[in-house]
């Protein structure tokens, strides 16, 4: 049972990262009904910006430098995402739905290749955490796992509070339910869309940093697989649904960790994760938390 609990924790750690990224997909989809394929590049940019900050501030004690890395990474991602929306998606607001999708793929390629031109190899991510192990009963957790789980929890809780209780959060929900009606009761929809990209990218950037703290290296194409899995998690939970993205991410992370530990070959873990996706979609086509989707445009 020992290793089961530990795998569960490993899975939750990985899953909370997927969940953070999945939220970015789901928030944008909720408002624009569009899959932002460039979101995995935001994840990658967050890791690079965080890495740069950590290297620059390596003289500081780790809580300070890590804090600064998160701040810089999240802010950089948020600004890039807002700019990307203005340049590549906003002009296509009234275009057929395929057009912004293709534009998103284009943005993804541009961002990835810009980094590729600069550095096309693996970069070591600074190891900032002391390799402390903490025992809670029979379970051993590393400090980095605690940091990942704790900060994801804080970010997700903060997001939930924000969209549930604040005026801007309400405006976001209103836009996702009926964009035109929202604009007619005085919501500046374009500003709310920018805000959505801003928040989604902050979460994605933070996830990129957490992921590279966990695995210790970064590369220009590091966003692809986690991005794919986070997208899967968003669909699993019911795309457009915020609690769904969180649950989907955790479920995917746990199934992957279990697959790695208990299947005959660890490589089968992704097969297990995606088999679960297929099963869920057969039984509940709108995802675990998904509601009846209505064609809104």
């Amino acid at each position, binding site marked *: 049972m020992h290793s089961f609990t530990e795998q569960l924790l490993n899975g939750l750690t990985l899953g909370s990262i997927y969940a953070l990224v999945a939220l970015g997909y789901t928030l944008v989809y909720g408002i624009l009904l569009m899959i932002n394929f460039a979101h995995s590049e935001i994840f990658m940019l967050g890791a690079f910006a965080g890495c740069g900050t950590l290297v620059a501030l390596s003289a500081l004690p780790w809580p300070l430098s890590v804090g600064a890395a998160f701040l810089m990474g999240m802010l950089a991602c948020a600004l890039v995402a807002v700019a990307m929306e203005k340049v590549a998606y906003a002009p296509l607001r009234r275009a057929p739905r395929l057009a912004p999708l293709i534009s998103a793929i284009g943005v993804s390629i541009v961002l990835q290749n810009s980094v590729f031109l600069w550095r096309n190899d693996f970069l070591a991510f600074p190891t900032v955490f002391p390799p402390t192990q903490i025992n809670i009963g029979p379970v051993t957790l590393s400090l980095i796992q605690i940091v990942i789980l704790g900060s994801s929890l804080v970010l997700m809780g903060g997001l939930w509070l924000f969209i549930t*209780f604040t*005026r*801007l959060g309400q405006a976001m929900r*209103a836009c996702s339910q*009926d964009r*035109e009606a929202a*604009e*007619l*009761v005085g919501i500046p929809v374009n500003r709310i869309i920018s805000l959505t990209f801003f928040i989604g990218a902050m979460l994605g950037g933070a996830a990129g940093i957490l992921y590279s703290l966990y695995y210790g290296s970064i590369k220009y194409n590091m966003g692809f697989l986690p991005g794919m899995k986070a997208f899967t998690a968003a669909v699993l939970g019911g795309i457009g649904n915020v609690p769904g993205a969180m649950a989907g991410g955790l479920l995917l992370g746990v199934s992957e960790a279990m697959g790695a530990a208990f299947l005959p070959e660890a490589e089968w873990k992704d097969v297990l994760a995606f088999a679960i996706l297929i099963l869920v979609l057969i039984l509940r086509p709108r995802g675990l938390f998904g509601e009846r989707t209505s064609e809104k445009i």
Partner: protein
Amino acid sequence: MILLKTSGLSKTFGGLKALSDIDFSISSGEIASLIGPNGAGKTTFFNLLTGVYKPDAGEIDFCGERIDGRPPYWITKRGLARTFQNIRLFNNMTVLENVMVGRHCRTRSELFTALLRTPGFFREEKEIAESAMERLRFVGLLDDGNELAKNLPYGAQRKLEIARALATEPKLLLLDEPSAGMNHAESLEMAQLIQRISKEGITILLIEHRMSLVMKISQNVHVLDHGFKIAEGTPDHIQNHPKVIEAYLGSTQETPEITIDARG
């Protein structure tokens, strides 16, 4: 004082002229109605006033300012609010939240005050909830504040839409068929609600098919037919206007009952 005025307003969809050269005006404090057979262009007119469509020609002046070509949220902020023919609430939000969304354009707090949770932020959130409840009380939905909008009965949804529009603090309120689908008693209640809104100093323009309601509460009636304005005047004047009678009786054979006489 003239609150809103259009001149030469026209809108074409493909080859179809939905509205041709509409001159219209409404004074502060007035209750006016816009009537006409189906497809006359009434909702198109509302959509032009609120910025959903841009006019092909003509201009719209509201409070002495050109508003044509402006985005809907901007126009709402200037004091022009509306409801919809097919109710468009935020169904998965609570009744209170729907009205709070209407307060958005009258409040300011930005992302950073929300993240930093400044005292001003909390004060403002409280003010929003309180004034939203005030609107709910006004339309008689105070007890349903925590219900999801989609769970309200039909008549209450219409009232909620009005409360949401009132939350934007309009000078002019456009109501698109407020009594559609209501029974006689409900429509009388709606007439009273409209008159109470008017007493608050809000000017009202409504699209309505129920002539008893139109004739009872309007000071002025404007008639559209096939995109043209064919008449305007007091209810008495309109009821006996030959062109109006022809528009209703002549062109819609199958519904001669929608005449000008007062009917439930």
